[in-house]
């Protein structure tokens, strides 16, 4: 039984690494999103040649500035998609860890019963805690990933229709990660690594 718990701990360590990477990606995505909204907010202004002051002496300036901005916007969207793919691979890893965890319990020679799953030895985590923890983490991050997907498509699909306050709201939602309760996540790890603290 203890061997299985140790294997779970290894899994949780790897999961922890991936969740740290998630945070890095999160700040990257937020800044990409912010930059995209800046550009979108500016487009209206850039369309009006009255706003070009002395630059109007340069033939074709309005089209050129707009074209460059659209190009940067496209580049940002491409990078956002790449970032989203990386989020996706983390979610896939969480799903795999969840499946592997179940396999670990089922496949072990002792085939623990429900009672054994719930059995507590000292401050070691119960097997059921490990299983539920992995499944919970997958659920949380999966839903958050779905939310991010739809936020990014909302921005790209309605880029020209949304007002800047709409962008602000989307960005806030993206930054808040409402599906991931930090407390809940910490609680999972606290139980699994209770011994180590």
């Amino acid at each position, binding site marked *: 039984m203890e061997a299985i718990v140790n294997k779970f701990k290894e899994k949780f360590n790897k999961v922890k690494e991936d969740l740290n990477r998630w945070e890095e990606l999160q700040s990257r995505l937020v800044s990409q999103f912010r930059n995209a909204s800046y550009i979108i907010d500016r487009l209206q*202004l850039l369309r009006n040649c009255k*706003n*070009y*002051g002395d630059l109007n002496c340069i*033939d074709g300036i309005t089209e050129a500035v707009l074209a*460059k901005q659209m190009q940067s916007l496209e580049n940002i969207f491409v990078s956002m998609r790449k970032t989203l793919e990386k989020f996706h691979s983390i979610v896939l890893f969480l799903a795999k860890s969840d499946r592997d965890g179940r396999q670990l319990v089922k496949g072990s020679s002792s085939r623990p019963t429900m009672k054994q799953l719930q059995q507590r030895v000292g401050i070691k985590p119960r097997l059921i805690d490990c299983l539920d923890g992995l499944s919970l983490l997958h659920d949380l991050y999966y839903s958050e990933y779905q939310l991010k997907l739809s936020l990014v498509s909302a921005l790209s699909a309605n880029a020209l229709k949304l007002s800047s306050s709409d962008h602000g709201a989307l960005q806030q939602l993206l930054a808040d990660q409402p599906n991931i309760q930090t407390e809940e996540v910490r609680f999972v790890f606290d139980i699994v690594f209770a011994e180590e603290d």
Partner: protein
Amino acid sequence: MEALYSTTSFPSITIDSNLSNLNSTSSPLPPSVIRLWRPAAQRNLKNQWPKLASYRQQWCSISSSARSHATALVNSHLSQRYMPNMELGVLNDMPDIRKRACFKLFKQQEQQRSKLLSSYKDMVAVVSDMKNISRSMRCFFKGENNSPLLQFSSFPEDKSDSGDGGGIPVFTSLSISSHEKLADELIQMFMLELCLKRLLVLEFLSIGCDDSQVNQLKWSDELYPGEFNHLSNCNLYSEETYEPAHPRLRCRKCEMVYLKFDSKPNSEVLQVYLTSWLAELNIDYFRVDEIFDMVGEEMHVRLS
């Protein structure tokens, strides 16, 4: 010996029409001379191209810090302008608070102007350095032509020496003039962008200045001592009209009838100026990378 100037491998990219007559590899120079010229020319190009690549990086970093100076300048200027109507809350009771704040903002703008100007100066220097590189791609013979000890230099001693080894490919497919063409195409982008940036610098330097000032900026003003010398080294100064080349976009023109250099442009205009600075309208970075890749591949060196 044939192997030295036979052109066996062609890259799949077509560079210019010069390539079509490469098969003939007909250099008017004797093979023994070519055998010595080629390594020297290769060494020279391997020396020059990386410099161009590093100037490009320098341009990017200077341009981006110049943009931060310009942004800071614009922000201080707008704060100063809005100061009289700004809601100051409890600070309202402090004596002369608005006056002091305005003075401070005014001082800040002075600093930011000089930082912006010095960045502009650096950008001019970078373009001037680039231009010098494109002038030193050729490799000329030095000393006795038929002596067994050939030497090379970057300046022609003999007018008949074109420095291009008779137009043969220096590495596998590009001749000296093809290298020059690619370098010029690249540098042209930065030159055009420099003129456009100069207009923006003038605009930024003019904001917040007193309109009544006699020394209101004009396009024909030299922004720092020596600017016009640098610009003429870049072929960006007209000796006929005594002013720098006009800002324009590639393949477009410019009608500089009357520039206001408004000292109090509205914030929308300022935002457009900042965006235009950022956009580097004349530089097609995709093409820049392509050129560096192409040449790098030719020389078996990584340039970007």
